[in-house]
């Protein structure tokens, strides 16, 4: 297992390096005059030229990437061209916010999806039909629309939660709960729909296997058969979907954070990309890439732990 983890980590490093280079090139290809984008239309051509030189934008692309890479390898991601804030500070502060939304949404969607997925598979009939119908609705309705409805009902009309902004948990637990509840629900709906359908299918598939008939013939209770044996086998595909959902939720957070004005990575991504703040965008790209690599690794390990038939190789 150790060699598996090491190999995955090494390939992850290579992947991050490739992604960082591609991101750097793409940013410059579509970036227009970056100094002009930073300074706006009021700046004169002379000031724009001065800014271009100050940021080193007049140097060859490879030289700029090389400098960034060397600096990044020493842990220095530079400063925002726009606000002057250290990129590491900027990204780490927002990573906590986004992770609280995405992990919250992942946990909630995992729990609810497993419960209703198993229910649908075991009960069948109307329950199954209802779960499938609701999953279809969950797929079909866009996350931003759900977010807007939640704000309208629970924040504006009922005043049960905050419509905008984020309160750190260290400042106030109830304030934090109030600021993340609606965004987490908005993010969870689609994920619940995807994972529930996957769990349902996997459980139905697993319960028709011979070993389940054998277990039942040995007199094991239905609960034991389902929760100890069927779910273990059905968990693999569900975990894979959950991993994909986690990555998808990172993308979904971009929209949700805009609607709820939450200072997370999604909001920072939009703002820094529009502003042409390349050091921040690069910091975000690297962080997202590392996050996805770690999550995929953890899911592989979890699958191995859940099902001994899965071999790490």
């Amino acid at each position, binding site marked *: 297992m150790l060699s598996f983890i090491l190999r995955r980590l090494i390939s992850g490093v290579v992947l991050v390096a490739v992604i960082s280079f591609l991101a750097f090139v793409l940013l410059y290809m*579509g*970036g*227009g*005059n970056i100094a*002009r*984008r*930073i*300074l*706006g*239309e*009021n*700046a*004169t*051509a*002379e*000031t724009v030229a*001065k*800014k271009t030189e100050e940021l080193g934008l007049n140097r060859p692309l490879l030289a700029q990437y090389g400098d960034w890479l060397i600096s990044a390898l020493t842990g220095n991601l530079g*400063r*925002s061209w*726009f*606000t*002057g*804030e250290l990129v590491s*500070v*900027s990204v780490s*502060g*927002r990573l906590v916010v986004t992770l609280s939304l995405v992990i919250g949404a992942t946990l909630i969607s995992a729990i609810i999806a497993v419960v209703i997925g198993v229910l649908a598979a075991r009960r069948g009939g109307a329950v199954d039909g209802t779960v499938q119908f609701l999953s279809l609705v969950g797929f079909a309705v866009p996350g931003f629309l759900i977010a*807007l409805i939640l*704000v309208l009902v629970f*924040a*504006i009309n*009922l*005043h*049960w*939660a*905050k*419509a*905008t*902004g*984020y*309160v750190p948990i260290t*400042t*106030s*637990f*109830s*304030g934090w*709960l*109030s600021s993340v*509840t609606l965004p987490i629900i908005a993010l969870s709906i689609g994920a619940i729909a995807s994972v529930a359908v996957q769990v349902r299918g996997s459980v139905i598939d697993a319960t028709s296997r011979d070993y389940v008939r054998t277990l039942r013939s040995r007199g094991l209770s239905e609960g034991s058969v389902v929760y100890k044996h069927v779910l273990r086998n059905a968990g693999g595909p569900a975990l894979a979907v959950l991993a994909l959902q986690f990555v998808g939720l990172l993308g979904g957070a971009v929209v949700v954070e*805009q*609607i*709820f*004005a939450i*200072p997370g990575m999604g*909001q*920072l991504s*939009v*703002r820094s990309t529009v502003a*042409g703040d390349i050091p921040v965008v690069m910091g975000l790209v690297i962080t997202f890439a590392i996050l996805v690599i770690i999550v995929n690794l953890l899911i592989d390990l979890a699958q191995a732990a859940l099902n001994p038939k899965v071999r790490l190789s």
Partner: protein
Amino acid sequence: MMFRWKATAAVAVVAALALTGCAGGETETTGSDGGRADRLTLISIAAPTSYDIGAGAEWGNRSEFFEAVFDTLLRKDASGEIQPNLATEWSYNDDNTVLTLTLRDDVTFTDDTKLDAEAVVGSLERFRDGTSPQAATLAGKEFAATDATTVTITQDAPDPSLENLLSIAPGLVQAPSSFDDENSATTPVGSGPYILDSASSVTGTTYNYTANPDYWNADAVKYENLTINVMEDTTAIVNAIKAGEANGAKIADNNTIAEVEGAGWTIESNELDFQGLLLLDRAGTMAPELADVKVRQAINMAFDREALLQSLQSGYGTVTEQVFPETSVAYDEALDSTYGYDPDAAKPRLADAGYPDGCTLNIMATAAFQTTFDLVAQQLADIGITVKYTDPGASNFITDMLAPKYPATWMALEQNPDWQLINFMVGPAATFNPFKYQDDTVDGLIETVQFGTEDEATAALKELNAYLVDQAWFAPFFRVQGSFAVDANTELAFWPTNAYPSIFDFSPKN
């Protein structure tokens, strides 16, 4: 089983109570201490750039962030008139090339260092030599500290905009002790009415300030705490307003005004920008048709400005045919009906110019304003001008416009005070005169504005404005209403000269 349901219900009730208890609780303006209200919460649509005045200080929609922590040498009151601030007196020499400022002697920065003439000179030089968007406005000026409270600004030629500049970003004074500190970008040291609480602020999103206990003009500070939340999304702004999560908010989209007023908020407004076509290639180097004034005049006749204002801004604004704002001495209401909407008269004028079958005009477009471009194309088509749009991409829009790569463009431009406006869009070196078009009449009038007496300058400005309209340098559609909403607990005197109100002009109603 019953127990689990009860426990679940209890948890749900506690959670709901917790959520209810903390939602929408940020708008208190009570709890006053010493005549001040507790907190003012504002919504801004643009995050501040670096707090280092040499790297990013700006006014406009970012003024509130800088006004909170720094002082300017002069300041504008709610009516837009220049008033003393750090400088109590100021005067020019005979030929208006040396401005002498007398400073207050009782001001300290928030790091307890003294604000004196050397500090002011240091700040002015830092701004001039830096890369803030307006850095060029101080180019060529020299600054000197004559004594501890006297600063002189020397320039080669008169600059009629200098006093205005000293009341906005170029006039900001930063503590010299923070010049070499890289963290001054996010941890400003000034002498302003508030101190930024960096620990509880999130750069780019939430800025929390507490009142400066040693502020020299304490009576002007009406709130103990100030919070500015940055929201670029129109929906988020309207949601925050409806949920009562702020006291004041910049309205990014005038089409939301009815909704905002429906929530019980009041709209204060001014007009600072015009939208319209910039007919940049007046010499016809790229589009020979535009060299003929009759073509430019015909273009001005093509637009149903009232309909455009209604369609694009829900009617919030005023139709205009001149680029000088209503606050300018150059403004003449009669000029706004010079051309009118007269497509029938436009066609013969095009024919007179040698284009009886019309012509084609290359204009740049961007997806964000597609409705505008569609309407412009339709109205120009009605007089026989075919518009050929090219979308260079949002990130290249300004760059390509100023390159210049197109003979004409749609644009929303600031209507600055007169001399700044001239240097922004009229003069031969103006940023938005990318073809460097020159006209002897215009040059002569600009010279009088700069070197003439006040009366001569006023007359020249009026004449310049009338000439630009007659020669159809631009085809303005309307001045856009700049809108700011305040809740029922807050009063605001919205100055006429900036996109965002002064933080000194908010006050609690009770």
